[in-house]
């Protein structure tokens, strides 16, 4: 069935308009980021001029060199990395064990425990933060990184997500391994885990991103600049009087650009993780 020339032409114009609109939306999305990077590379006296500059002129890296004089940037980056790595690896380990138990082992109270944990997904973190803060204070962990990664070790969503994934792996496989004399740890780490690549990747990416970008936790628990993570460090830098705007921009750039580069490298699996988990960061 061939549409007549009029509708075909109209459809082509329509398609062109939608293409244009999409280009425009895409530009609006990236423009603030480009502006950010450009200003951070522009000499202080020439930055933030109007009309806005879209190329760094004169180009300089001085703004970046001024960051360490104002906040311990490298230290903060290491802190962020440390918290994110421990939270991710630790919570994954705890979740994998629990998910295996909920998926494969039968023990009294299993479904009850699982339901109670699941219902805790409704509890907002802001509700538990005051008691957790008091707990950390009693343990002497306020203003330490442990105050951030310890509570992050329990990730109910990740337990749930992994259990659902484990349930899709045929049980005949572990039955066969058990007949061959394999123990549960062997079955879990030599069979189930290698078969769960996509699910584990999704949880790794999401947990890491959530920890790396966390602002609420560090705001509550951390107070010394040397102990801070990057998000709270950025805000501290901006609210301090000492830093000029270009240095703030340089610091934001230094935080944002590596993340964007990592994202570009892993875009496919990243987007797939978000879509599969349907989780908002």
């Amino acid at each position, binding site marked *: 069935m061939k549409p007549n020339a009029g509708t075909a032409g109209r459809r082509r114009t329509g398609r062109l308009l*939608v*293409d244009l*609109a*999409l*280009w425009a*939306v*895409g*530009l*609006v*999305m990236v423009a*603030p980021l480009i502006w950010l990077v450009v200003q951070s590379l522009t000499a202080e006296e020439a930055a933030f*001029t*109007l*009309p806005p500059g879209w190329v760094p002129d004169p180009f300089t890296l001085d703004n970046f060199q001024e960051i360490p004089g104002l906040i311990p940037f490298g230290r903060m980056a290491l802190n962020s990395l440390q918290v994110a790595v421990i939270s991710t690896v630790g919570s994954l380990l705890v*979740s994998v*064990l*629990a998910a*295996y*138990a909920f998926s494969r*082992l039968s023990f009294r109270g*299993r479904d009850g*425990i699982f339901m109670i944990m699941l219902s*805790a997904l*409704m*509890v*907002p973190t*802001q*509700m*538990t933060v*005051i*008691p*957790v803060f*008091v*707990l950390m204070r009693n343990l002497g962990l306020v203003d330490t990184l442990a105050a951030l990664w310890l509570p992050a*070790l*329990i990730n109910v969503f990740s337990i749930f997500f992994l259990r659902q994934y484990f349930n899709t792996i045929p049980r005949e496989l572990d039955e066969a391994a058990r007949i061959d*004399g394999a*123990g*549960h*740890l062997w079955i879990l780490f030599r069979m189930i885990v290698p078969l769960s690549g996509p699910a584990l990747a999704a949880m790794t990416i999401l947990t890491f991103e959530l920890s790396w*970008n966390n602002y*609420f936790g560090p705001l509550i628990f951390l107070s010394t600049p040397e102990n801070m993570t*990057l*998000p709270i460090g*950025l*805000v501290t830098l*901006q609210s301090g009087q000492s830093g000029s705007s270009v240095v*703030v921009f340089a610091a*934001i750039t230094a*935080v*944002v650009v590596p*993340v964007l580069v990592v*994202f*570009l490298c892993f875009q496919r699996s*990243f*987007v797939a993780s978000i*879509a599969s988990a*349907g989780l*908002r*960061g």
Partner: protein
Amino acid sequence: MTAVTTPATERAAPRPATPAGRSRGQRAGYLFVTPAVLLFLVFVAGPFAAAVVLSFYSWDLLTPAEFNGFGNFTEMVGDPLLYQALANTFLFALASVVTHVVGGLLLALAVNRTMSRVLSYFVRTALFFPFVISWAAVALLWKYVLDPTFGVVTHYAGEVGLSTPDWFTDPDWALPAIIGIDLWHTIGFTFIIMLAGLQTVPSQLIEAARCDGASRRQILWYVTLPAMSPTIFFAVVITFIGAFQIFDPVQIITPQGGPDNSTLTVVMYLYQKGFQTFQAGYASAVSLLVFAVMLVVTLVQFWGARKWVHHQ
């Protein structure tokens, strides 16, 4: 519990039928679940119970807590600032749901077709870029982007003859500005969800409708959108849950709650009460309110999931 002493490396295959086998399976089960349960008790269930108890006390986090009965709750009923925070938060959540769901759906519909690969890659990447950046960076950046003197938005709006308000000092415009920034930050997420939903719509349905002579608009209204209703519903729920707990951008951009408290949100109020004026009991009572809202939303979600489960 004796289970804790058993080495986890037991190799025998437990047979559920024999009592010994079952108990060994039981032990392994408890062992595997113990780290999660302990952490859960210490960092989730315990604190949750503590928050409930605390909401009946008044406590400054230092001196001994005093039992206050329903004092915190009666105080909440007569707290105009809490009402303001609730109104702001609901307004924000509503605007957030509408803009994200409509925007995400339109973008997904616009992208889900044959188009140039360059444009497809560019749009997907650009839409998702802001979502991977921390709120701290996003909020600081936008504070400058919307700056009344050297901000980009102010300048280009002026170029086309629009005058822009002084966003974060104008009580009428501070919250809308935050709504816009939030849209920029998280639309990529809604877009991905919508696109995934759109791609699950069975193509036979669309083909069948086309063969029956349905127009493109009719296909959209009577085939695609109804088939996508579970996805749309999910996006509404998840956007609402996220938006209702909005804290980072409002706290960073307008730390005091904005002009005339126009950007004060419930979670921000909770934070102020708990960690700035040290009214831990009152803050806990407010947090119970947030929990109640989440509970209602979850019940609605269950109801909706049951309603739509046979629909596909």
